[in-house]
């Protein structure tokens, strides 16, 4: 409870949370909020600047940009959540086992992680997409896979520290099975770094997924996806800058929102900063 209260006093984090909430509402109620069908097109109305009918103007096929950005929220948030979930689902168990058991297993896992961390994450994602082929789901998988090494490293670090604690020793003395110790005693205590990392990874996921879309490797047209929209806008940036500006703003805002919230959470969850923000 005190964590939440501390978070509530963190203004920037609150702002971040508000932005994310706004996007979440957009994503859930997209069909009700969007003023137009995001796929309805009319070439005669292409690249119109913002007007009362089209608040953010129209894109190269004459589709309503605002509606496409609102529907794009769904795609972007979904991509972010699923890729972080992939990272979590693989990275946390592997990191926990690696940290808890140590030995040759740890050595093997950590060297593999070293290799993966040596590549910039986005490059790793591009390699995965190159193997699987472009597309929304493959992009999610690619980003998710590129998140795994970070999770492994962070969770392992926490576990290394926790496994030497007295309560773990006590559990061991009672004859509790190792896996149960990890599940019941260690992982709950790793939650703070995992939550913080996940929030920050959500921001990266949006950025990377958009990046893949921009390169034509992510969501494919006509799916309204911010990065894809931004990529397509390059051709028109001189005659109709709004088709680049608005999707770009959406990406920037969402990334900012998750980053601010993540920073706030880190501060709020840090026991050393208790009460002082």
């Amino acid at each position, binding site marked *: 409870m005190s964590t939440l209260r501390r978070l509530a006093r963190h203004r920037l984090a609150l702002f971040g949370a508000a932005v994310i909430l706004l996007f979440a509402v957009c994503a859930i109620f997209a069909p009700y909020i969007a003023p137009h069908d995001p796929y309805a097109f009319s*070439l005669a109305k292409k690249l119109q600047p913002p007007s009362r009918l089209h608040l953010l103007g129209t894109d190269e096929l004459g589709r309503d940009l605002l509606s496409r950005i609102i529907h794009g929220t769904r795609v972007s948030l979904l991509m972010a959540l699923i890729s972080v979930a992939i990272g979590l689902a693989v990275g946390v168990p592997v990191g926990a086992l690696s940290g808890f058991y140590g030995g040759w297993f740890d050595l093997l896992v950590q060297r593999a992680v070293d290799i993966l961390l040596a590549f910039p994450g986005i490059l790793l994602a591009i390699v995965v997409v190159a193997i699987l082929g472009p597309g929304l789901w493959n992009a999610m998988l690619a980003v998710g896979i590129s998140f795994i090494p970070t999770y492994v490293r962070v969770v392992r670090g926490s576990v290394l520290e926790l496994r030497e604690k007295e309560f773990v020793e006590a559990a061991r003395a009672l004859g509790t099975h190792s896996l149960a110790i990890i599940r019941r005693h260690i992982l709950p205590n790793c939650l703070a770094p995992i939550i913080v990392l996940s929030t920050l990874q959500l921001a990266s996921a949006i950025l990377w997924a958009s990046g893949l879309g921009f390169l034509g490797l992510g969501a494919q047209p006509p799916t309204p996806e911010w990065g894809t929209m931004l990529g397509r806008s390059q051709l028109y940036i001189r005659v109709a800058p709004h088709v680049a500006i608005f999707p770009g703003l959406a990406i920037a805002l969402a990334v900012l929102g998750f980053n601010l919230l993540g920073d706030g959470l880190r501060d709020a969850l840090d026991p050393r900063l208790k009460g002082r923000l």
Partner: protein
Amino acid sequence: MKRIGLWVLCGLLGLSAMGLAQGPRMGGELIIAFGTDPESLDPNKITSAPAGMVLTHIAETLLTMTEDLEIAPLLAESWEFSEDSLALTLYLRKGVKFHDGTPFNAEAVKVNLERFRRASYRFLLYPRVQRIEVVDEYTVRLHLDMPFAPIISHLSHNFVAMVSPKQIAELPEGQDIVAPIGTGPFKFDKWVRGEYVRIVRNDEYWGPKPYVDAVVFRVVPSDATRLVLLETGQVHAIMRVPPLDAPRVAATPGLEVVKVPSVRTIYIAFNYQKAPWTDRRVRQALNYAVDKEAIVKEILGGAGGVSDAPIMPLIFGYSPQKPYEYDPEKAKKLLAEAGIPKGFKVTLYHPTGRYMMDAAIAEAVQAYLRNVGIEAELITMEWAAYLSFLFKPVHEATFDMFLLGWGTVTLDADYGLFSLFHTSQWAPAGQNRFFYSNPAVDALLEKARVTPDPEARKDLYAEAIKLIWQDAPWIFLHYEVQINAQSTKVKGLIHHPREYILAHRAWLE
């Protein structure tokens, strides 16, 4: 303000007058940016205009086509047909040398033409040539088994370029020429794949020598990037300005927009031998589903015309048909009759950056098809990979539809129709990459190429075009107008309807 403007104008006029007074200046490196890396520089292997543009500076053809679309002599000074049209005698230019010093003569022509004949795919250029006779050092005679009307225009095709017989002789079996040795005004210097091709002046050129020291053809796939390179003065000329940017570029001091007709027709072909494209109703339905007028007007900014034949109006043998009008209701009805369920999924392959607004056009077509209940998945590839993907034999061809263009650069319907629609030209033997086949069309096209009388040929082509139009093997889209741009500092560049920028006589101020 106005007065200052006037003075500046006077100054500029004065400067340019000085420039004029000086006349063409020697030296300098001319940089031309285009969108696609040549897939090859081997005359035997090239298939696209960008590659042809580079090659044509290095290796010359026997005949050529001027920018006014007239056939003109080049390495052959003159030619004549025998009475029965079965022998074509070419009188070659004397004193011409290849870049490696090998003399250009009748033997060299024979070696080159024989090499073309061996490449089955190049065979379409002179399928009726039975024997190539070296009459004397500078006279070659082609013996035909039947009159072959389009042979003169085919010999002017830039792909039929002469390279040094020494180079051909020394080429290992199964390998392609990478650095062609021709007789042209420029010599091959360097080719960095995907980046640029550099050519340098041939000081021993037989004709008027180029002014510039070197020409660099820079490969810049993005239309927008090419334009920025021109605007920032990093290149001197670019191909394919995005149509929506053209007015702005034209208004920029120091830059000029050059609009030239193109002989290129853009189409979306159906996989003719694969269900449901075997059903004419489906193919026609998709033609009704797409608003070609809107695409030309809005996406191309009017730089083109809606196709009313598989070849464009400047080409001999063109015969206009009634375009499939935009009628989504009719399209839906035809699709329902053919039993196509709603939400039917298809693949539509398209290049990005090869043709004017190609990706945007594919996206618009996707949107139009969606309106009649067809979900098209857009798949794009890099140009060389794209061409080889679409060059598979019929049983390996997995695509539903693809977007491609064809420039009938010989200006004769034979090259535009026979190559694309005759059954013998199915990929990978020829350019019928969509496996169209209609025996009646085959017969007409065969007859038209051996009929010497132009009027009779026109009638045959009109008949063939009518049948092709009804069969609708394509979504007939449009023909292009080229929009190029250049710096006003460059003089004497030729923007050719074959989609070439020719630097032969260009100079830098």
